[in-house]
């Protein structure tokens, strides 16, 4: 391997690592606010990517019907709850968020798909579908048991992976899709040819990281999420509605997953089950920072991407085996240097 190939591999690795980093960021965020290790975030990646592929074919992605069904279920559920608690005045806002918003996205998708709108509009619609889906999923799967142990929540996240992947197969079929890169230019930089897709991934990572930083630092909602992350009970006492924080975290998680999906399908073929492995690689990145540190999660994810690219070059059949075995040294390091204190917590 000469330096030319090494540079190309590292560039590829950084490009896919940027996608893992995006996901890892939101994984840490979701874990902090809800204590859910959302291994099924990858399904949002798949859903957005395959929706995007459907739009490119001029077809409405069938996943909107899952969105519709969940919207109805959650609207009814929340309205009944509100009435029982004598909070009927909340119903309009419940319906606005849980019924009208999804309905608008569904209607737009149905209307726009046959018209083959510009690529950016297709991408935006695909991301919108999953972003609206995220909080509904949280509402149904996690909110009723939000105070359970980390373990229980983890098992639910795994079960959710089964359910969502099954729906992925149902609505998109077993066939894989690939879309044209959003930014189809190559820039020559001395000996290196930088692909537009790589620039786009890194730029997205930079913009979204900055955006998340601003959100948490300068907005009330962001501060509420941070407060929930630091102390759930305390946050509730000062009047932050923790279900709202959970839904916000899931909306962000789904949004970022969706964006990653659009980026990913530009450079690789996506199947109904591709998202799970992508998500797990992001988990590896996030674990490097012990699910706590955002910067280490980003660095770890980019490391995962580079390792993957190198492994694919040397032993392509064993790429996944190599990538997931990389967890071993990480765990070793964590258990030697970052082991949690003796006084454990009832998990």
């Amino acid at each position: 391997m000469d330096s030319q190939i090494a540079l190309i591999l590292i560039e590829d690795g950084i490009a896919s690592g940027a996608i893992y980093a995006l996901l890892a960021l939101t994984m840490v965020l979701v874990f902090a606010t809800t204590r859910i290790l959302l291994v099924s975030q990858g399904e949002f990646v798949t859903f957005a990517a395959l929706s995007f592929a459907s739009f490119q074919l001029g077809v409405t992605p069938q996943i909107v019907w899952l969105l519709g069904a969940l919207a109805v279920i959650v609207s009814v559920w929340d309205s009944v709850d509100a009435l029982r608690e004598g909070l009927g005045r909340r119903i309009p806002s419940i319906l606005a968020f849980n019924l009208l918003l999804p309905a608008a996205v569904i209607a737009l998708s149905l209307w726009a798909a046959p018209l083959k709108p510009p690529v950016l509009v297709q991408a935006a619609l695909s991301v919108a579908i999953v972003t609206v889906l995220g909080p509904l999923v949280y509402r149904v799967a996690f909110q009723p048991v939000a105070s359970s142990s980390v373990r229980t929540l983890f098992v639910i996240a795994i079960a959710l992976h089964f359910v969502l992947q099954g729906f992925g197969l149902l609505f998109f079929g077993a066939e894989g899709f690939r879309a044209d890169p959003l930014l189809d230019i190559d820039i020559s930089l001395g000996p290196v040819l930088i692909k537009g897709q790589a620039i786009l991934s890194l730029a997205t990572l930079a913009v979204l990281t900055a955006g998340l930083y601003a959100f948490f630092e300068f907005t009330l909602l962001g501060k509420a999420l941070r407060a929930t992350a630091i102390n759930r009970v305390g946050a509730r006492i000062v009047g932050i509605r923790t279900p709202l924080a959970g839904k916000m975290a899931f909306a962000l998680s789904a949004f970022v997953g969706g964006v990653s999906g659009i980026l990913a399908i530009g450079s690789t073929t996506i199947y109904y089950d591709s998202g799970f492995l992508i998500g797990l690689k992001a988990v590896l990145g996030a674990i490097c920072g012990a699910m706590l540190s955002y910067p280490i999660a980003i660095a770890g994810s980019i490391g995962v991407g580079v390792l993957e690219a190198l492994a694919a070059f040397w032993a392509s059949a064993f790429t996944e085996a190599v990538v997931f075995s990389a967890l071993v040294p990480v765990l070793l390091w964590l258990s030697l240097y970052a082991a949690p204190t003796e006084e454990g917590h009832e998990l």
Partner: protein
Amino acid sequence: MRLRGLLIIAALIIAASLFLPPFYITLANYVGLASIVVLGLVLLGGAGGLMSFGQAAFVGLAAYATAYLTLSYGLSPWLTLPVGLVLTGILAYVLGALTLRLTGHYLPIGTLAWSISIYYVFANVPALGKHDGLADIPGLSLFGLQLNSGRGFFYLIWAVVLLAVVSIENILDSRFGRAVRSGGRTTPMAEALGVDTARVSMAIFVYAALLAAVSGWLYAHFLRFVNPTPFGLSASIEYFFMTVIGGATSTWGAIVGAVFYIIGKQWLQTLIPALTGRVGQLDVIVFGLIIVGILHYARQGMVPFVLQWMPRRRPRDVDTNAEPLRRRAQPQAGTELLRVANVEKRFGGLAAVNGVSFDIRAGEIVALIGPNGAGKTTMFNLITGVAPQTAGEVSFCGQSLRGRRSRQVLQQGVARTFQHALLRPHMSVLENVALGAHTRGRSGIARAALRLDRREERQLLGEARRQLERVGLGDVMHVQADSLPLGKQRVVEIARALAADPLLLLLDEPAAGLRYEEKVSLAKLLTGLRAEGMTLLLVEHDMEFVMNLVDRLVVMDFGEKIAEGRPDEVQANPRVIEAYLGGVDECLPLKRAG
């Protein structure tokens, strides 16, 4: 009675084999193979609180090991079984060593990653047949009898299932089993009772992996074909789901979960294509939803959910004639037992304990008192090794306790109770107290599984019963611990600490939450203990209780010792009055201080 249950089940299995058509025999074999794996998960998760998403990979490791060795080297399957077991055991040990030290989600993530890695290894190594796998694996012969048919394997597989059930029930009903159920690293209690939690976790993790390996070996010779698919991550997740469905806290739940899942899957895979016209693994949606539903509405799973409506099994009597356990020699009254010298504990900039010194002599009752936040419980934690001190020295019987963990401190002869009673809620009172005697036995997982621990077990339970009778709770020993009122739970904690045969007993607010009569009998109990030569150190807020009971008091305030002496001396000490009563304006009655 247990034997009768097993005989009934064995009879049922034989009867089933005679009447079931071949298709169902095959299905029953798959159920049996899965049950063996799931039983390991019951021990691991339901009892030990650990989660593994890597069991299918252990199954695959043993299956591929035997397939490769029998095909390439013509080894007998009976030779490849130990090879597979050793290989699996080593890998499980390494994985466990990497993840078990870390809390919560690292074991599931670690096993998950390992599951994915090994799958791609199976699927890409040419010698293992890549994605096509290995075919024509020999069948098994047992005592010259060829097990070619499904029916022959049916007996073998279900015999193994029964053995696994018996071994796990034996393990759970033992000294080691109580340690497994002691909550491990999630609570400071287990280590404080002398349980080596890391070792216990490792033992059950390896045992669960070995069960999976046996299942994999049987699988390879039953099917006579292996390929990577049944050993991937999805399969591991499915084993886990069977555990959740059947009920992770019940051995029979493992089998019920496997039956439900495998038959349900079979049924769905014919039903869904008929309904939707689509092929593919859509059954995962249904099972995923079932799991979410179970975790929302019936978290304990099917078998425990049903069992809660059934009459409880009558608890076994405790043999009162068991030979008593050996006791430590109590030190001569008046010799120095515990010495605390200039001990300091800082949390960041806050000094919770600041340069405190005192000592305790054998045969006395000393109380550590002080207003809330004075650092009394922190002092307890420093003495018992639950938390390390920042500076200073604690020594017991002349030996420094520096760097000792709570388990080792207990072995030296210092037992304690906790401020908020920490009993294992779902274990009986007797079992909770027997857990206290953990360090006085030595039987581990193997002796427990083989029932070689019965003599020691009788001694331990006998000791637990004696201690319960000593504190006056002999009549509730078979009651589940969390059904006792809080006051009695505290007394159970004292019995549990006594079961460790300590030289020094540390009691953290023993009288809190007790009614007047209970306090009187507690005081009587403690004086009785002193008369037998026991030394006691207690933290207490109830001044009336303390003043009538103790020989000496150490008073702390804001992390510092402000006074020490006989009750009457301390009561007259101006600094103590100042600390408790504050300024002249806020006059609180002494008894309610704190």
